[in-house]
């Protein structure tokens, strides 16, 4: 899923303070799961903003609404009845959701209330970690199901570097060395000969090297 973290309150206040009526919009998908921008966080942020703004002697009317999926235009239509009453939109969705709203309501300023972080998985309660950088040509089959692009600090496709120490990455003892993990998995799978093959230079066109990417499914596209 896509993970996010709420921005500091002061930064959010600076965005909304010039407006009288703000529509605060959450999302029921990833940001709900990582507890950054779901219905609950929308409520918490609304009351936090109220209090802080009151203390500053300002009054901003905040309307709350949480969409099923903010990156989906179909669901964003739900805001039609609320948008006219708002001077600005504050979105708690990931960057994709924020942009869907900006694209739909061209004359409304929209501000992000969260920092979108990475594609990750839950490691344990309250901990999420990066797992994929969407390179567009997945190597996991060769690397024992561990991603060297998202999880090696140097994106080495033929690691480990000379800094790998007792299972940890050279940058930080609390970060696993991806290549130690890959090696352990290849051993467990009896696939150590995979390691000997050099993974050739990556074609980054499937990734960030070729401008904004798009998927067009002819069978589904209207």
């Amino acid at each position, binding site marked *: 899923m896509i993970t996010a973290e709420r921005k500091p309150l002061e930064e959010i206040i600076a965005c909304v303070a010039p407006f009288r009526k703000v529509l605060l919009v959450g999302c029921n998908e990833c940001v709900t799961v990582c507890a950054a921008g779901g219905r609950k966080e929308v409520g918490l942020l609304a009351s936090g903003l109220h209090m802080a703004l009151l203390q500053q002697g300002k009054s901003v009317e905040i309307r709350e609404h949480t969409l099923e999926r903010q990156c989906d235009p179909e669901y964003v239509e739900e805001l039609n009845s609320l948008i006219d009453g708002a001077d600005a939109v504050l979105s708690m969705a990931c960057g994709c959701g924020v942009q869907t709203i900006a694209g739909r309501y061209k004359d409304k300023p929209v501000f992000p209330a969260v920092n979108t972080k990475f594609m990750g998985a839950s490691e344990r309660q309250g901990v999420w970690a990066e797992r994929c950088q969407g390179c567009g040509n997945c190597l996991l089959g060769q690397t024992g199901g561990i991603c060297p692009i998202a999880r090696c600090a140097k994106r080495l496709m033929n690691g480990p570097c*000379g800094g790998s120490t007792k*299972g940890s990455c050279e940058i930080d003892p609390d970060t696993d060395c991806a290549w130690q993990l890959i090696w352990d998995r290849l051993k467990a799978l009896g696939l150590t000969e995979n390691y000997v093959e050099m993974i050739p230079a990556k074609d980054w066109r499937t990734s960030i090297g070729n401008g904004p990417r798009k998927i067009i499914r002819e069978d589904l596209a209207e």
Partner: protein
Amino acid sequence: MKTDSKLEKILAAGHLAVTGECGPPRGCMPDKVREKAKYLEGVVDAVNITDNQTAMVRMSSFAASVIVKQEGLNPLLQMVSRDRNRLSMQADIIGAYSLGIDTMLCLSGDHTRFGDHPMALNVHDLDSIQMIKMVKDMRDEGKFQGGAEIKGAPKMFIGAAANPFADPFELRVMRLAKKINAGADFIQTQCIFNVPKFEQWMEGVRKMGLHKKTYILAGVTPMKSVGAARFMQKRVPGMDVPQELVDRMASVPKEEQAEEGVKICVETIQRLKQVEGVSGFHIMAIEWEEKVPEICERAGLLPRPQV
């Protein structure tokens, strides 16, 4: 002979090669480079010019290599994949070769987190092994990495690094094999303090016959003080400084520690000379270049052979 590199000639003739290191200054001080080069003249066969080492901005390896070349020494251009993409790498390789630089070392580089620009983006378009392959294809196939033909291909003698002390140990020989398959003509190792562990690694290297496919230069570093020894032991990732060496440095008075460090370095070289498959030494006297002539002298590495 694959190249005109002096280092290749020395190694091919069966001599023990000696390389040194010069870290370029953090500013426009070409005289600093000349001064460091002077200490190494006639003492080493090639001088590694580091590339933004420890992720701190310095005079470029390319520019400092040119200065060293003008002084009559043989620069060994280091290149890290951290700071440039494949276009920039190939452009620099062609430029360097056009100015008479024919020997290089392909590295991934320390992470930016360790340097003075931790906010910078790490490039890593290629990793060090893919870089080796690119330089080899430029030389042997006359092809750019993108596939087009090069008119006037650079003939680089290609080096790579190996760290026998990093984890997982069992992978370290295999990773060396990968670098050799990619095209590494010679290897410079991480500083060796733990000689038994290095010998164990070399045993694995010999078992796979890798010492016959590449030249292995054993890396050594003289310790200036017990403080430096402790720093390397505790703070430098992938460095293995045995406690007994730290204790030995601590056992002599402060003003004699530098001499003790040099003594340990010379003893290490003598021991490593006995290890089958070691083709030479890479002496990394960091900010202590003036000691290299003495170390080489005492280790019986002088005079350097003429080839």
